[in-house]
C-alpha cells in the first residue's frame, strides 16, 4: 500500500466531503478516492504485465528527456525533421528513417527501452479509423 498526500482546492474538497457524507456516510472519503483512481486506470487502460510496465516507465522517462530539449533540437538543422533516439536521457542516434535508426540503436545497445521520436512540434498523430481498434490497454 502507498500512502500519499493530495493538494486540493479548499472549496472543491469541502464540496467533495459533503457529497461523500451524503452518498456514503462519514469517514468514507478514502474509499471513494481509491475507487476513482481505479476507474481512471480502467478507463485509460495500462498493461498489468510488470515487465511491460517497467519498460513503459523507462520509455516515458526518455520521452521526458526528449521533451526537455525538443525546442532546442527543432532549431538545430542537424536534428530538425529527423528522428532521434533517446537512452538514459541522452541522444544515442539520429536518422531520417525511424526503422533504420531503431535497427542501429538495437544493434549497438541491445534490445533496450529507447524512445524514438521525430524532431518536430507536437506529438506524432496517426489515424486508424477501424471501429474495432477501441480498447484502451496500451
Amino acid at each position, binding site marked *: 500500500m502507498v500512502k500519499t498526500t493530495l493538494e486540493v482546492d479548499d472549496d472543491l474538497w469541502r464540496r467533495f466531503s459533503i457529497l461523500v457524507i451524503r452518498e456514503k456516510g462519514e469517514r468514507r472519503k478514502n474509499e471513494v478516492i481509491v475507487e476513482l483512481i481505479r476507474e481512471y486506470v480502467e478507463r485509460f*487502460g495500462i*498493461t498489468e*504485465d510488470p*515487465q*511491460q510496465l517497467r*519498460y*513503459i516507465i523507462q*520509455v516515458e522517462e526518455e*520521452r521526458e528527456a526528449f521533451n526537455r530539449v525538443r525546442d532546442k533540437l527543432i532549431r538545430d538543422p542537424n536534428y530538425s525533421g529527423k528522428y532521434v533516439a533517446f537512452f538514459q536521457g541522452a541522444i544515442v542516434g539520429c536518422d531520417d528513417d*525511424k*526503422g*533504420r535508426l*531503431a*535497427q542501429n540503436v*538495437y544493434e549497438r545497445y*541491445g*534490445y*533496450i*527501452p*529507447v*524512445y*524514438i*521520436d521525430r524532431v518536430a512540434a507536437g*506529438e*506524432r*498523430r*496517426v*489515424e*486508424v*479509423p*477501424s*471501429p*474495432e*481498434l*477501441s*480498447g*484502451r*490497454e*496500451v
Partner: protein
Amino acid sequence: MKYNLDYSPPAPSIKVRFSSPTSTNSMEIEAKIDSGADITVLPQNVVRELRLIPAGRVTVSSFDGQEERKYTYFLNLHFGNFKFSMVEVVGAKRRDALLGRDVLNLLKTILDGKTMNFELLDP
C-alpha cells in the same frame, strides 16, 4: 488471393508473420488489409508474447474522433514473398492485426470486391 469470409462483410486479409527485432521469436496471425489505417496495428497479446519493448508514443485518432495515446514497437514482418524490417506498429486490444498504409504503400494493392479477390504485388 481470396477475401476472408470470416469478416462481415468479407475482407481482404492475409497471414502475416511478426517477429521480434532481435530474437527469433515470431508469431503468425491474420492481418486485415486496411488502407484507412496510417499505421499497422498489432494485437496486444502478440506484443506480450513477443516481449516487444515500447520505443515511441503516438496519438491515435479513431473513426469517431476519439483520441488515444498508444505506445509503438518496432518489429519485422513477412508475408508471401515480402519481408519488411523494423516496421513501427501500435498495439491494440483486438484479435487480428491491421496492415496499414505504412506497409501497403510499399506495394501495389488490387482489391476486386466483385470477385472477392485481391492481390499484393511489388511490380
